[in-house]
């Protein structure tokens, strides 16, 4: 028995903030104090609160320290572990109330969440299968093995579980198609090609609780009659790949993957395929082509992968988060699962909350929660006291939802009605300083770049729309550009081959729907209301602040700034090319924009 257990978050975020250095320093201190046998230090998966990393929790008293460094460890060990005094300066401080909080469940970021899929993330050591088992792991698999495949399919159907990777297709129906398909060989494919910029829930799940995904895969395998799976994971996620490999090796050692699992006669093999960097491979037919070693380009459906998938065999493709829900449903039952969520969207959804909120990170919330609760309670509101403007939800396939819809419940159908979509769950909050036209341009430049080029509407349409948006943000917009954009957007949406093209216009359509005035300001007034589009800004020097240090004159590439030494300077608007170099250079904040 240990007297204390210390959890250090070793998700990618905290590692980059220095979690390993903290661990090393802590180990050293424990050794110095002869406490190694009394205190266990655990590297856990992501706790979600990346903003405040590295995070460290001391159990059993549950004291939550944040933004710790290696240098804090001598004090932490001496004060907290030896003397029993909490180190107050390392506790979390609420950004709005300034109140100090020591218990992590009392922090608003956590208290509003419902962590079901992430229940083990940040709690267990992901590289220790015993911990997963203690937390109820592999009981769902055992239940599934005791059942007839059709019963397993039925359970997932009744649970109302919908795919968490994008469009929200019912997982049970997918399984049923694959179950009914005839074939000597069937595959399960786990889509871990998380390519949406702004989303990292799959990464955190794989890093923090890899066994949950493996268990979900095998339950799917049992249900559809498959004996082999592929996990297609981005090569950009080296830690997720490493933890998955460790988990597979341990499960094999325990007889939970391999031959005759739990003496049931069920055999299973799990392979890992590393993706090579192409957003379109998140589309299921493109993903299959990529596993087969080809260019990852989509093909028309039908035939659906459930009938003709990987190497022509019936294949069931689910995303990481979807599969991580499955063991819970099998263990705790359909009734338990359906008690959370809304009529059409059961269970929870994980969001990657980022952008201009105070608390960024990963949160899991019940379906039906409002955007307001996510942004203002969990996210702690907009940083720097700025004004909230919109959230962008669902990445390049999703859309922007304005302030007027803050009380919109988050579920698959409400979001689609609002013109956005759940997508994979990226949630980027924006304040008054974010230009919505520029944001649409940003997403289009992404989808245009990632368009595989196979079908014309997507290949040409995204290019033309991007050209128009670039023109508008550069102050060269034409009066007809808005109607042109609308026309192309609808065509691309209706006629593209795969999900990438069909959803690529969403960022444009939603910003046009909710923020048309910003487009008009750019086009007619040559003005960017958010003050973000460089070419539309005019720069001036505040004579009250400028002390004539001459620093700006040296960086101006076109010699537009004049003035005597120690006298206020002036910018010649005719010469100025609005590059912003003087603004970045001025230490006194005298250069301003209008």
């Amino acid at each position, binding site marked *: 028995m240990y007297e204390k257990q210390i959890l250090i978050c070793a998700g*990618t*975020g905290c*590692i*980059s*903030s220095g979690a390993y250095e903290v661990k090393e320093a802590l180990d050293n201190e424990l050794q110095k104090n002869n406490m190694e046998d009394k205190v266990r230090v655990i590297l856990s998966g992501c706790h979600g*609160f*990346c*903003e405040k*990393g590295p995070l460290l929790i001391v159990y059993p008293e549950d004291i939550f320290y944040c933004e710790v460094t290696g240098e804090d460890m001598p004090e932490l060990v001496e004060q907290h572990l030896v003397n029993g005094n909490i180190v107050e300066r390392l506790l979390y401080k609420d950004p709005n109330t300034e109140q100090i909080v020591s218990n992590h469940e009392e922090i608003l970021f956590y208290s509003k969440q419902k962590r079901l899929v992430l229940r083990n993330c940040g709690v267990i050591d992901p590289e220790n299968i015993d911990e997963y088992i203690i937390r109820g792991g592999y009981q769902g698999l055992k239940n599934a093995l005791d059942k007839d495949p059709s019963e397993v399919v039925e359970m997932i159907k009744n649970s109302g579980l919908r795919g968490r990777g994008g469009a929200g297709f019912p997982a049970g129906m997918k399984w049923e198609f694959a179950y009914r398909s005839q074939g000597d060989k069937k595959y399960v494919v786990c889509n871990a090609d*998380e*390519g*949406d*910029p*702004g*989303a*990292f829930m799959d*990464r955190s799940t794989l890093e923090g609780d890899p066994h949950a995904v493996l268990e979900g895969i095998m339950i799917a395998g049992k249900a559809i009659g498959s004996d082999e799976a592929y996990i297609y994971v981005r*090569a*950009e*996620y*080296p830690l997720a790949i490493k933890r998955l490999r460790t988990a597979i090796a341990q499960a094999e050692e325990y007889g939970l993957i391999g031959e005759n699992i739990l003496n049931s006669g069920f055999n299973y093999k799990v392979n890992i*395929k*590393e993706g*090579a*960097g*192409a*957003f379109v491979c998140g589309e299921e037919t493109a993903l299959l082509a*990529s*596993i*087969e*070693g*080809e*260019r*990852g*380009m989509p093909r028309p459906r039908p035939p659906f992968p459930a009938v003709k998938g990987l*190497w022509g065999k019936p294949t069931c493709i689910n995303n990481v988060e979807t599969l991580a829900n499955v063991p819970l449903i099998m263990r705790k039952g359909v009734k338990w699962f359906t008690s959370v969520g809304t009529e059409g969207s059961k269970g929870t959804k994980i969001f*990657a909350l*980022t*952008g*201009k909120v105070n608390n*960024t*990170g*990963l949160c899991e919330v019940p379906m039906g929660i409002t955007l307001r609760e996510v942004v203002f309670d969990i996210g702690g509101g907009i940083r720097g006291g700025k004004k909230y403007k919109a959230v*962008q939800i669902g*990445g390049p396939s999703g859309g922007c939802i304005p302030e007027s819809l803050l009380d919109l419940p988050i579920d698959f159908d409400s979001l689609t009605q609002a013109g956005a979509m759940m997508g994979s769950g*990226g949630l*980027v909050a*924006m304040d008054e300083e*974010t230009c919505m036209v520029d*944001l649409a341009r*940003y*997403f289009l430049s*992404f989808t245009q770049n*990632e368009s*595989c080029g196979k079908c014309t509407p997507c290949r040409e349409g995204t290019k033309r729309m991007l050209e128009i948006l670039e023109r508008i943000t550069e102050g060269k917009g034409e009066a007809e550009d808005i109607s042109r954009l609308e026309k192309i957007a609808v065509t691309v949406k209706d006629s593209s081959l795969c999900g990438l093209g069909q959803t690529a216009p969403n960022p444009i359509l939603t910003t046009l729907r909710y923020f048309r005035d910003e487009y008009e300001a750019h086009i007619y007034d040559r003005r960017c209301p958010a003050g973000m589009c460089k070419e539309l800004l005019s720069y001036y020097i505040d004579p009250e602040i400028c002390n004539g240090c001459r620093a700006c004159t040296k960086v101006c590439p076109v010699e537009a700034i004049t003035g005597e030494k120690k006298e206020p300077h002036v910018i010649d608007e005719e010469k100025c090319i609005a590059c912003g170099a003087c603004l*970045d250079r001025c230490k006194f904040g005298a250069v301003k924009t209008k």
Partner: protein
Amino acid sequence: MCQCQEAATSVEENFEYEKVESLLQDYLDKKGVMVPILQAIQEEFGYLPRPALEYVAKRLRIPVSKVFGVATFYAQFHLEPRGENIIRLCRGTACHVRGVAKVADKMQEHLGVDVGGTTPDMKFTYEEVACIGACGLAPVMMINDRTFGKLEPDKLKGILEQF
């Protein structure tokens, strides 16, 4: 006259074909191996040398165009030699909203290369990627396998000097 045949069978004198051959051992007679083979070659050489791709085509009995087709489709593969350290600046949504553009400008100024470029001393290759999934710390970049978060233009110099 068409020269494909010639290109496919040409032999580069100083190229270490035996390295490629030994990498291929794990993959011959298996299906879906093109991407893993290219990943292995890139791991070994740091990029995909043309003779290696031609050799792969010959050994797998497929057209060279097919190998190039796959190699040029994915962002991960590079046909030119790259620097000792690979910088990947994230241009994801969260980083965009939190002002990565200024970091990117500073980086290019500092290194003196454009996106995709390598410094003349072969020390750094500068790339931009869609998202590296560390959005909580935006703006973010990776140098090799290390992640650096909460970037500011003025912090770059100090970070680059560590390499």
